[in-house]
């Protein structure tokens, strides 16, 4: 079924000594819906290297790797392993040929233990029964061997994200993977966890494994990889050695134009107080106290950043302010009026816009069209509704204008949002929120999983809104992002604000890191002096 596409750059037989461990030649993939995801891609990985694969959202990276892992079949092209042509029609066949993959979205069974997840599908057994003790022993032994610490008997749904990822890696190693594909492994990790992951990857290389690594974070790519392949619009536009590459060049190859990695911004013109939060307390339904007296102020025309290791209450803080969770006690005022305990719609009508952290579940309705997603917060109002009936023409006009203004890459507004790439989905959310003309914008992880071009765009939009006098509360796990965007910076740790810097001038990531880890805290009076 696969026809070998002739390719001018096929390696000659003479350098077979350097025959790559994995070679994908002339791979083309057209999805049933007609999307061309890979176009005559030739991609080679040498034994024992860390090979990074970068590219914008929707460039076709995951598709290429799914083909290598047998989850998708190429429309054309051929795969060679150790110089020999091969076919991989299922993950099972990939596994038996020594290829393992850790997916962008974790593939774990939540209620199973770590050991059960690691051995799933190839359990050590006695007859029809699973030998649980052997499974636990195997998991523990493997974890020890590769220095990937996990607790084999813990349930997967209660352990932190970093450990879940180690479970995924161990799962692949347990099945004897020599080539390990990691699809955006660091998108969900804290800087510390990323560091641990990199150490583990180095160790894997030392014992003779080969790693393919996908990431949007170019500094990570430069830090860890030996070679880097860049994809753009379904094509592979080049493979570079690390010493030939730098972040600026990679960004340019990915986007096809010069990208500005530094954020240009003028000093803030601080206006009146917009958001006042005092002694905010919140506990989950199961009684875990998450916010233990958070106080902060955001003024018109400034960006207040909140740095912190994820899971220290940032998510809950944002959702309490946005009206999605009810606080136990405390003050939340917008322009002097309390908005605590209001419904999300009332909070929005008071002038709060919210770019949620999890865009797939809270930011967009995946099966609804772009048009519909762009009016979900205002469809009850003029000009979208008149006399209780929706007005399609007005709705279409609105979406055309926003698609244009926010450079959303979509043929037209009737497309379901689920068909867009991650970066374009995020643009839909940003377009809706900013066009609501808010007094306060809460942006939670606005650039997570978003490619470099779209990230640049988000940053521009945030700064532009700030300059127009919007008060912005920015929460991000990406330390360099909050530090470069924020005018003032707060650090959250264990449900409290532990530091508040009146300016990010001269502040180092190391310094902020100490507060993030809770090793340092500012005195309450010093924090209050910067309110």
């Amino acid at each position: 079924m696969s026809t070998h596409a002739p390719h001018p750059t096929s390696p000659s037989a003479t350098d077979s000594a350097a025959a790559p461990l994995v070679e994908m030649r002339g791979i083309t993939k057209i999805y049933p819906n007609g999307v061309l995801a890979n176009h005559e891609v030739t991609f080679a990985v040498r034994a024992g290297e860390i090979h990074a694969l970068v590219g914008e959202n929707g460039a076709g990276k995951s598709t290429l790797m799914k083909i290598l892992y047998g989850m998708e079949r190429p429309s054309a092209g051929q795969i060679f392993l150790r110089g020999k042509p091969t076919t991989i029609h299922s993950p099972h066949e990939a596994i038996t040929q020594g290829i393992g993959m850790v997916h962008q979205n974790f593939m774990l069974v939540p209620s199973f233990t770590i050991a059960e997840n690691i051995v799933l599908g190839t359990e050590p057994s006695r007859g029809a029964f699973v030998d649980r003790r052997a499974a636990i022993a195997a998991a523990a032994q493997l974890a020890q061997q590769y220095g990937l610490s996990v607790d084999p008997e813990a349930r997967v749904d209660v352990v932190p994200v970093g450990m879940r990822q180690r479970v995924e890696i161990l799962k692949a190693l347990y099945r004897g993977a020599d080539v390990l594909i990691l699809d955006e492994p660091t998108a969900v990790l804290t800087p510390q966890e990323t560091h641990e992951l990199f150490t583990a990857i180095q160790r894997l290389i030392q014992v003779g494994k080969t790693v393919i690594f996908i990431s949007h974070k170019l500094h990570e790519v430069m830090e860890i990889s030996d070679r880097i392949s860049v994809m753009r619009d379904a094509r592979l536009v080049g493979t570079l050695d690390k010493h030939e590459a730098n972040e600026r060049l990679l960004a340019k190859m990915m986007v096809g134009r010069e990208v500005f990695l530094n954020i240009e911004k003028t000093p803030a013109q601080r206006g009146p107080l917009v958001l006042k939060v005092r002694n905010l307390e919140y506990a989950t339904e199961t009684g875990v106290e998450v916010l233990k007296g958070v106080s902060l102020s955001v003024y018109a025309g400034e960006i207040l950043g909140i740095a912190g290791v994820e899971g220290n209450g940032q998510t809950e803080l944002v959702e309490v302010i946005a009206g999605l969770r009810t606080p136990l006690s405390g003050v939340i005022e917008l322009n002097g009026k309390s908005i605590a305990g209001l419904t999300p719609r009332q909070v929005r009508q008071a002038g709060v816009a919210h770019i949620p952290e999890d865009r797939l579940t809270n930011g967009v309705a995946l099966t609804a069209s772009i048009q519909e997603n762009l009016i979900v917060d205002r469809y009850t109002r003029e000009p979208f509704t008149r006399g209780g009936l929706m007005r399609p023409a007005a709705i279409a006009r609105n979406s055309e204008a926003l698609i244009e203004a926010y450079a959303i890459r979509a043929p037209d507004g009737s497309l379901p949002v689920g068909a867009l790439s991650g970066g374009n989905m995020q643009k839909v959310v940003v377009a809706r929120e900013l066009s609501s003309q808010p007094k306060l914008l809460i942006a939670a992880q606005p650039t997570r999983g978003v490619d470099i071009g779209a990230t640049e765009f988000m940053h521009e939009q945030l700064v532009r809104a700030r300059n127009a006098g919007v008060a912005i509360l920015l929460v991000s796990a990406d330390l360099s992002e909050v530090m470069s965007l924020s005018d003032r910076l707060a650090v959250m740790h264990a449900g409290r604000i532990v530091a508040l810097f009146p300016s990010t001038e001269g502040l180092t990531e190391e310094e902020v890191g100490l507060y993030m880890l809770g090793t340092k805290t500012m005195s309450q009076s010093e924090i209050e002096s910067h309110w």
Partner: protein
Amino acid sequence: MEQALQAIFSATFVAAVLRVTTPILLPALGGLIAELGGVANIALEGIMLISACAGVLVSIATQSEWLGLLAGLAAGIITALVLAFFHLDLKADIILSAIAINILASGGTIFVVFLLTGDKGSTSALVSRQMPFIEIPIIKDIPLLGPILSGQNLLTYIAFIAVAGVAIFLYRMRAGIHLRAVGENPDAARSVGINVRSQQYLALALSGALAALGGVYLSMGYVKFFARDMTAGRGFIALAAIFLGGKTPLGTMIAALVFGLAEALSVQLGNLRVPNQLVQMIPYIATLIALVVYALVQRQRAIAHQRRFRQAPTP
């Protein structure tokens, strides 16, 4: 009243509870397997009815209870496989397909009975065989326990043994573990080479088999004939038992026993001078109350947690 209390606190009453729990417990265990496999089977009611009917008709024709049992089992499994085929291969909605099966079972069984016997109500005019009742030596002579544990129908024993069997299957055996993995995260299962479709076929087939045993028990254990709509909602009560039981085999059994108790009570009170219609409502009302109590308990628990936090001194 005194008479009623006496009846309730007797060994015969406990034995009756086990007897009426059987046709709830068996389909509930089947439904549990399907539920955990990610293919909620709400056709339990219809499958029971079809099996009850097939069992009796074959047993009448062959005068063999074993062939009747086999026929009931086969009918139940085939019906479940039809549901699986609609859902897994033809991609039909499983709830709608199951509703169709339930409706078809209700009308279809009585149609077949009419064709074969000329009676639109039941097969009670004909002699069916019954699954054996088993006297356990020694145990049957123990006072009090004897009449409870001994002399039950074979299928009642099978139902309670199946609780352990299903637990072992789901938590210790490869097939059961794969089945649960498929139910919880099909993508994860698929990515490690587990065949999702065949696991779900297996889950539905097993649920069909267990529901079939429940149906056969109704027509060839509990009584000796098939009657129109004789399942009387037990297939749905079984579904409630699964959720009340927290989707575990043991919990499901306990929930089924509670419903069994309610039904035994209604039978017992039916002998007294209480209006029949009221008494017959008991099992259904018990189901409703149980579900409401369950929801309230869940909520109360959450509120209690919040309160505990509120009262904790702020550091």
